[in-house]
């Protein structure tokens, strides 16, 4: 029985009051905004970026979200980074994604864990310093506390393995979409150790760097809200034949919600030849 799905179903139809109350933005306004953007002005971002999310998640541990930029990156005007936050997750910081003019377009898509009905926010920072925010409300429950993933051992066995998937037609000089699949359980941490004698620390991907012919196109800091076996979609501009390279480092932390006691883990690399 898949409880996360059932809970979504029950909550939506039997507890509308709860759903309504969850639409409050107190946590963001009173705590998170300060934490991430103290002293900065956040402008309405609808002309800069769009955030696509399902209204209701089929699987709260695997919620597909996408940020789409409204314009191509140029040296004069480009999105420098995009920050993703899920207000009511136990650890609201989802990830920070850095782009350059070489990225082509500052789109980013991934799957995330949503722990309870909450706003998901994307904040874009321009090269000129302005911050723009968009948000969407997602109905999901239990993503972070839900079971790790259907086949934990399979994910562990190929841990570190990465796959690149590109647009079939690679157009010289035009932004081309790439998909990066990383095999990693990205676990949030485990309880129940007193009963079953199992304890596992949070073990997740912390840093990802993608370059094309050694030029950075995507640099990211991520955390436990990224789903197991992450799948990122982003753009790059192949102006010549070359090599896409992805590198990631993982970490393990004692607590699912505090980053005070963490140990840097291993680094993994994967390359992919591109010939437009």
């Amino acid at each position, binding site marked *: 029985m898949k*409880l996360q799905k*059932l*809970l979504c179903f029950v909550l939506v139809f039997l507890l509308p009051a709860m759903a309504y109350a969850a639409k409050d933005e107190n946590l963001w306004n009173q705590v998170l905004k300060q934490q991430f953007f103290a002293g900065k002005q956040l402008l309405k971002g609808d002309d800069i970026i769009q955030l*696509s999310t399902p209204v209701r998640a089929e699987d709260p541990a695997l919620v597909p979200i996408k940020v789409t930029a409204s314009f191509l990156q140029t040296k004069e005007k480009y999105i420098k980074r995009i920050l993703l936050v899920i207000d009511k997750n136990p650890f609201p910081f989802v990830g920070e994604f850095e782009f350059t003019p070489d990225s082509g377009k500052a789109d980013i898509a991934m799957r995330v864990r949503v722990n309870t009905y909450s706003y998901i926010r994307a904040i874009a920072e321009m090269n000129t310093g302005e911050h723009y925010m968009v948000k969407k409300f997602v109905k999901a429950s239990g993503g972070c506390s839900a079971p790790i993933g259907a086949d*934990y051992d*399979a994910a562990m066995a190929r841990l570190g393995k990465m796959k690149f998937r590109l647009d079939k037609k690679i157009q010289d000089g035009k932004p081309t979409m790439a998909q990066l699949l990383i095999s990693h359980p990205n676990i949030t941490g*485990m309880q129940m150790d007193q*009963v*079953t004698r199992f304890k596992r620390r949070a073990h997740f991907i912390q840093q990802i760097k993608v370059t094309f012919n050694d030029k950075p196109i995507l640099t990211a800091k991520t955390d436990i809200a990224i789903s197991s076996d992450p799948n990122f979609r982003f753009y790059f501009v192949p102006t010549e034949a070359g090599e896409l390279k992805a590198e990631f480092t993982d970490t393990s932390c004692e607590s699912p919600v505090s980053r005070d006691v963490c140990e840097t883990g291993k680094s993994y690399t994967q390359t992919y030849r591109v010939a437009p």
Partner: protein
Amino acid sequence: MRYLFLLLFVITSNAAIAAFSIKQVAQGIYVHQGPIELPDVRNHDAIANIGFIVGKKCVAVIDSGGNPAQGRLLKSTIQKITATPICYVINTHVHPDHIFGNSAFKDIANIKFIGHAKLSRAMAARGAFYIARSMEQIAVNLTEKDIIPPSISVKDFLKLDLGGRILELKAYPTAHTDNDLTVFDKKTNTLWMSDLLFVGHLPVLDGSLKGWLNVIAELEKQSFDVVIPGHGPIDRDWPKSVQAEKHYLQKLATNVRAKIKQGKYLEDVLQDDDSIFKAQWQLFNEFHKKNLSSAFAELEWED
């Protein structure tokens, strides 16, 4: 004389039968068939097929139910039917409708809980989540005390002698979950397949689609007189009852594989028309999209 005894038995156990339906499906094998419903505040997650097998020396419980009260009901039903002691509680996998009756059996002298070698870990990973949800979802206050991990772990195979009756327990590679166990009774050629077989109720994928198809292929080749699913009616014409499940899972695999090859993304697949999968399944709308999601995440790793 025998018939008088039988009559008396029927009268005295009538109360138990009325409160908790139990049926002998083969000699000494008793099954309570759960309703095909979502867990809710009315059924308290008492929705799975659970039961027991009686030997000369021991009774083995196979799945204890979705809440402690159901476990107690199962225990008292067993004790009304036979004086043979309950020696084993076998959990076929970690899902809550199969394990949360365990606490009703823990005070039995020398009781042993048995499960797949990965069951303890699965209980550790999911336990807190199941407990946190329980009041809201099924109106039962589950606590840590209701999580009882196995003391006997089955890695591949285990033979259990109930006294003139050998049960063969088999642990599978990831299929419905990553901790599936079946129980085979040689005496009656019965396979207690549990959630590796869904009849009527849409199969729920919480392990590996490919793994599950492999297990079905393997078991299809064998012949059993009686097969007991985790949800739905008993099959006496194996492998008839597994065909619907097999076709659903195969269709899932073919369909999702094709979409991945076409370059479709997860969010696209979740929005596609899926009426071709529906067939006669119950609870289709509640579980199919989640199955699609799981299948996609598994198959996108294929080369």
